[in-house]
């Protein structure tokens, strides 16, 4: 989509949110803030210096040293801030951050976690988005006896207005610990630590005041995520944000109400550089690609060769690597050896190009991805649990990515139908494909086999021929056989 088309699409989607879903689409901090300016600025650096945590935390204080931002220093600042807030302005234990630090210190001594196996808690009607957590040292650390997590669905590619973030901060400091992960690995903002009775009020605040929903957890669709795409990146070949948003909205039921054998992830990468790791992490990875030709600006290629533009956008500036050598640095490294440079003109045999992005990454001002763009779809990635790690396998080479993405949704529905029918408890899609076979999976989604699906043909001939594939079928009698071959 162009910027202009996107503006229209967005306008409609936002209108739908407002009018059909009845939610707030723009957050104004002043309208929802909980704390006054005085309450927010209620401490000084001197207070932090003078702070003594209610527990001894010598090991954690070690972690204040060194240049990398210290999570301990940050937590201490939050502890000071909470101490100075009026009692009626925090509903979760005021000293919960101090108790958390205390328990972490205990873990540093014991070298074991002190969190219990999660209990089942949640908000009404949802089976995900909240993860129960209880301390096993509640007597020592009463402020964190219960410390549940809420996953807050991030806006696609994680742009935020400060109004929205400030409002979230106020709500979370008021109803929870004020600690969070920005962001969790799947993509949500993860609010860490509140008690059961605050879950529903939190959920009401989030949906009413921020217009945001919980993310996924458990055996359901996990919160989809995408790269920054066309918003910031010249390599993006489809509308990653829009596709991510559209599929997230279309599959809200699957996201909130677990009905799957196990988790399922969608991730959207605008190009094969794969910034959101879709190929390693998503059961269904959407990766931008093109099918026409790399656009070449020969003038700019020569400028790179002449040393007028730093290669790879200046990514190697910290070290003296010598003069840019297009032969060594680009032509020779092309995995399909489909490029030629004669000193003046760069040639690419585009039909042999495997679109690895290398040459484009090295000379972004001279080379641009093609204009006839779409997505490749790969299936089945997962971390090692249970049967070992798997990467997504190339299944759909090219598909146009166009709103409202009906072709993609159809595919998703087919895959899920099969997985929900055949998948065992805690079996990811990739494992199911492995247990049945890629052939079976292709039958399910209705696509023919192609050599691009494999690295190489099998080396064993143990083919599971089907009866109907063999002339005459499998029904034979030993009598007939013996007529030809006496015993």
């Amino acid at each position, binding site marked *: 989509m162009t910027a202009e088309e996107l503006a229209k699409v967005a306008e409609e989607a936002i209108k739908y949110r407002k009018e059909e879903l009845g939610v707030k689409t723009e957050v104004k901090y002043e309208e929802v803030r909980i704390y006054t300016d005085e309450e927010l600025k209620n401490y000084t650096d001197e207070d932090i210096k003078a702070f003594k945590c209610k527990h001894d935390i010598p090991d954690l204080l070690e972690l*204040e040293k060194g240049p990398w931002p210290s999570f*301990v220093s940050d937590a201490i600042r939050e502890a000071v801030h909470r101490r100075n807030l009026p009692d009626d302005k925090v509903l979760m234990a005021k000293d919960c951050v101090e108790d958390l630090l205390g328990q972490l210190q205990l873990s540093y001594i014991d070298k074991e976690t002190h969190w219990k196996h999660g209990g089942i808690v949640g908000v009404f*009607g949802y089976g995900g988005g909240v993860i129960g957590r209880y301390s096993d040292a509640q007597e020592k650390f009463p402020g964190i006896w219960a410390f549940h997590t809420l996953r807050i669905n991030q806006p696609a590619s994680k742009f935020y207005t*400060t109004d929205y973030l400030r409002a979230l901060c106020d709500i979370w400091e008021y109803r929870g610990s004020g600690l969070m992960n920005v962001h969790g690995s799947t993509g949500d903002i993860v609010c860490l630590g509140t008690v059961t009775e605050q879950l529903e009020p939190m959920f009401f605040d989030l949906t009413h005041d921020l217009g945001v*929903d919980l993310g996924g957890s458990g055996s359901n669709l996990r919160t989809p995520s995408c790269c920054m795409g*066309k918003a910031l990146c010249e390599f993006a070949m489809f509308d990653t944000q829009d596709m991510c948003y559209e599929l997230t*909205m279309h599959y809200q039921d699957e996201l909130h109400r677990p009905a799957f054998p196990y988790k399922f992830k969608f991730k959207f990468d605008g190009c094969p550089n794969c910034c959101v790791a879709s*190929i390693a992490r998503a059961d269904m990875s959407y990766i931008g690609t093109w099918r026409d030709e790399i656009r070449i600006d020969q003038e700019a290629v020569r400028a790179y060769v002449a040393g007028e533009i730093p290669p790879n956008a200046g990514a190697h500036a*910290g070290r003296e*690597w010598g003069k840019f050598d297009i032969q060594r640095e680009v032509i020779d490294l092309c995995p399909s050896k489909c490029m030629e440079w004669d000193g003046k003109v760069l040639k690419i045999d585009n039909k042999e190009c495997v679109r690895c992005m290398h040459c484009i990454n090295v000379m972004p001002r001279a080379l641009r991805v093609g204009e006839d763009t779409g997505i490749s779809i790969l299936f089945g990635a997962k971390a090692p649990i249970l049967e070992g790690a798997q990467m997504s396998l190339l299944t759909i080479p090219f598909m146009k990515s166009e709103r409202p993405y009906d072709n993609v949704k159809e595919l998703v529905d087919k895959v899920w139908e099969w997985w929900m029918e055949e998948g065992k408890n805690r079996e990811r899609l990739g494992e199911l494909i492995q247990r049945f076979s890629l052939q079976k999976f292709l039958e399910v989604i209705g696509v023919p086999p192609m050599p691009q699906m494999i690295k190489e043909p099998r080396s064993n001939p143990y083919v599971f021929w089907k009866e109907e594939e063999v002339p005459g079928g499998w029904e034979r009698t030993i009598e007939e056989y013996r007529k030809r071959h006496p015993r």
Partner: protein
Amino acid sequence: MSLGKLGYYNPDKPMENRITDIGPPHYYVMFPPVIKKNYGKWLYHEIVETGIIKRVSETGDTIWVIRCGAPRFMSVEHVREICDIADKYCDGYVRFTTRNAIEFIVTSEDKMKALRDDLMSRKHVGGSYKFPIGGTGAGITGIVHTQGWIHCHTPATDASGMVKSVADDLFEYFRDMKLPAKLRVSMACCLNMCGAVHCSDIAMLGYHRKPPIVDDEWIDKLCELPLVVAACPTGAVSLGKTESGLPTVKIKKDRCMFCGNCYTMCQCTPLADKEGDGVVILAGGKISNRISPPKFSKVVVPYLPNEPPRWPSVVKTVRQIVEAYARDARKYERLGDWAERIGWERFFEKTGLPFTEKSIDDYRLAYDTYRTTTQFKYTEHAWAVSKAVGGI
């Protein structure tokens, strides 16, 4: 704004005014005007200094994106400070990256310089930077990680503390772009691996080494025994009876590979242990399709002890790998590509990491990783074998 214990929620009428299934806020509302205007129109980018990316659009607009490292675990006070900065310089917009960096976008070079200086001047009272700029190009980004002892029930190590220690040590590679290619370091505190650590240039992974202890008295009351049995990928768990006749499960200890899957299913089979738990180091993975296909990370150090608060053995080992790579790899070569080019025997030689039998696969499909060619390089490892059979 909703105040009071219950806020908008009415427990007597829980369905009243309940809003559900609304998904995330629409992304477009969160785009700064310059992004809305230049969506899909970006022509090229250039890293003007480490951590600062200039992006040029076909409309003639130019933006500067300043990338700052952040611990992903942060307080609302930290987020509010980010908002203060974004209000001052970026008209109230900010974004975060997949690898937990903070990105501030400005529209003039002057603002970029002022913001850069401002960010680098902000320090915690404890001394560390609040918003160090870096993580672009041929360097390391922030280390993505999981929850660890701060908030999870299955970890074999802490995440935030180890990551802080390693990030402190590798800070020079975050602030500069002096590596042969980008280097992605990731951390997960158990085999569940919330995060893509299995395809990272360097991965740190928490691992148990003692089989589960069975809470015989309680397991039948709290867990579904057949599910626990089914959870075990190696078939190490079977149904059994306690001496007093209670149903329980038995663990064949020598078949356990300490994945913790039984514990995920059932709280009565804990694995965590002070001496048993520690860290595995894996290396040579990647997720990008650039030049070579994505790769898994490989086990190069099977175990390092948990040494809070600073994990010196982990820090030292990671540095050893990074330095050998920095010295030896060619421009654009990712760590895994380098190891493959020089051969894994050379990798162990050049990094100085001891090669142990634990790096030889003995799980399913192990044979796929065995070498079946006469192509190899001579290293001390090879001479040791020759000697062992009296060959030399």
